[in-house]
């Protein structure tokens, strides 16, 4: 039942500069990103039939923070519009469903966040079970370190292979030097964890003929699925990612090889784990963009993975995979397959 009834393609995307901190508001960031995504296609905001935004009040530090972002999409006359309190990759999922209803042709989805304005160690415990886990105050680094230990114990990664992921992703440093650094949460060192990044991304989708009119090489979404898992990390096998496996199977990963995989792996061991779970061999280029280890704009990071995977198709590639995640220790995972043909 997962075959789309309508051809839907990514036809363009853009992101703001990724910086450690910007004084621009989320609305300003989105204004830039949306304009940069639609202008090269010859589209204006009036051409957009549907918008879906992804952002998180807790990152912004304000209830209803997404409401002012309606200014960035230029929702006048009023737009068919929605918002997910999730990464923009899930906004993309909603738009993909909506476009299959067939009555509209062009959608814009966004992801945006300024994580520099908050303290991740204070904010992220708030996404945990409020009765049993949030009161522990464990931060994302702590949960990631627990999973890293499990992944190492399972023989899927070791400290050296993790450092190699960091060097490749950031295209800087050398493994020996990195391994000489102190732990910040054993077995994680500074290079194993993502940077704090402010930024936003916007993506344009189009259906059928309209996509082919607008660009020479649309990146067709041929498979799309996401799955969640049990919340409490202590009830999960942390050296596995069953939700990623189910989503990848449902998205049709197994039917043909991919050339590129963009994974929302903010920690080095996560990349090694997902490579194993997805069965990605050395012939697959993983995170050629540098991935979240290089730039990690929270709430846009997953959408950027789809954008970079689409870039591979725009540039002549045949098939690519994008992954996005949410929650502690990869609780919830999304897989999107892009191809040169519908």
């Amino acid at each position, binding site marked *: *039942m997962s075959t789309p009834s309508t051809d839907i393609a990514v036809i363009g995307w853009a992101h703001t500069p990724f910086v450690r901190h910007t004084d621009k508001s989320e609305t300003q960031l989105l204004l830039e990103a949306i304009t940069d995504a639609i202008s090269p296609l010859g589209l204006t905001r009036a051409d957009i039939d549907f918008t879906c935004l992804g952002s998180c009040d807790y990152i912004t530090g304000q209830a209803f923070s997404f409401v002012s972002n309606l200014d960035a999409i230029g929702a006048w006359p009023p737009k068919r519009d*929605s918002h997910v309190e999730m990464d923009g990759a899930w906004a993309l999922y909603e738009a993909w469903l909506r476009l299959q209803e067939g009555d509209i042709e062009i959608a814009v989805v966004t992801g945006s966040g300024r994580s520099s304005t908050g303290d991740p160690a204070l904010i992220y415990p708030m996404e*945990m079970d409020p009765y049993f886990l949030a009161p522990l105050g464990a931060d994302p680094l702590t949960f990631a370190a627990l999973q890293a230990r499990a992944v190492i114990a399972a023989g899927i990664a070791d400290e050296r292979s993790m450092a190699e992921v960091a060097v490749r992703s950031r295209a800087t440093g050398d493994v020996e030097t990195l391994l000489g650094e102190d732990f910040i949460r054993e077995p994680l060192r500074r290079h194993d964890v993502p940077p704090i990044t402010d930024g936003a991304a916007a993506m344009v989708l189009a259906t059928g003929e309209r996509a082919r009119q607008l660009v020479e090489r649309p990146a067709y979404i041929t498979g799309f699925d996401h799955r969640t898992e049990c919340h409490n990390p202590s009830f999960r096998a942390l050296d596995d990612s069953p939700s990623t496996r189910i989503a990848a199977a449902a998205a049709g990963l197994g039917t043909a090889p991919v050339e590129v995989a963009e994974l929302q792996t903010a920690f080095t061991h996560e990349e090694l784990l997902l490579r194993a779970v997805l069965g990605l061999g050395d012939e697959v280029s993983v995170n050629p963009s540098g991935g979240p280890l290089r730039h990690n704009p929270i709430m846009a990071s997953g959408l950027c993975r789809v954008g970079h995977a689409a870039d591979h198709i725009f540039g002549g590639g045949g098939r690519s995979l994008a992954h996005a995640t949410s929650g502690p220790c990869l609780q919830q995972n999304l897989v999107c397959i892009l191809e040169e043909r519908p």
Partner: protein
Amino acid sequence: MSTPPVAVVGVGQTHHKSRRLDVSFGGLVREAVFRALDDAQLTMSDIDAVVLGKAPDLFEGVMKPELYLSDALGAVGKPMFRVHTAGSVGGTTAIVAASHVQAGKHRTVLAVAFEKQSEGNAQFALGSGKGASLGAGGAFAPFIRAYIQRSGAPEHIGWKVAVKDRLNALKNPYAHLKIEDISIEKVKASPMMWEPTRFLESCPSSDGACAVVITDEAGANAAAADGRPPAWILASSSRSEPPSFPGRDPVRPAAALQCAADVYSGAGITDPRHQIDTAELYVPFSWLEPIWLEAFGLAEVGEGWKMVDDGTTELGGSLPVNASGGVLSSNPIGASGLLRFAEAANQVRGAAGEHQVDGAKVAIGMAYGANNQYFSTWAVGSSLHPFD
């Protein structure tokens, strides 16, 4: 191009109360979910995907609660989706869940929305803890005053809406506020909150949840064959407009007019006042009823208050509005929109119990959010072609 037919086959809600200290967040949503599944004669294993809606996470202090609630909602191994479109979110949750089925991606989807206001302080959260907050009542009062000034409506209209919805709530076993001795005099004597809105013209803060099971044509036909009428989704729409600029009319928002037009054209409704049998409109403060009657084409401009005055919108009137008691009687914010959609569905299923509108074949459920900016609406029917 038309989308495949989809329908509501199960509806559940909690008994809404100020404080549900007896249940966790998970326990609260499960009450609604199991009632909806029982109603649909399905189990969690029949559900292919879950869509969760709620208002700002700051209300309870739990960020992205779809993560923690994955177990309670039986979503493990399934897609779990989280919507947030301000006060309209409950309605949008139902629309997005329906979209999962319409796209052919899933067969049966559970839409769930909740709020547990007692766990936090919504008024504090509305101001993001940064200072004093007007609250929703303070934000809407200028729009209400503008409506009164334009329409020349007499001041007792707001009191009448409050009395009507509170009387309706007495017929709804799930309603939060049950004021047995409600009267115009009592409303009039209640404290002034935000001129002209009095205390008894305002919604409560509630803990509560609502769940709706949406399935495909085969599932709906199977329910119908078993003597459990589905509510067919005739059309739906979500529209938004920006916060504030010269020319925006928050009393008659363009997004509301467009949302109504989308739904009516999709459902084949050409004369909403007469083709719609009952409406569940999002009315958290009494005067929003005539405002939305007009914006949604159920009354001519400037005439909505007259339908309140002459009893048209009462349970025995020719167009009952909020037969359930509405948001004025139960307000678990994130769920309030889904409750409107669910109550509309129950009306056309003939499942509304004591507050059933006789012979209801077509109903609309509507929710709105932010400063009259986000609008979600669906029209449901007792058949797919109710006007043939």
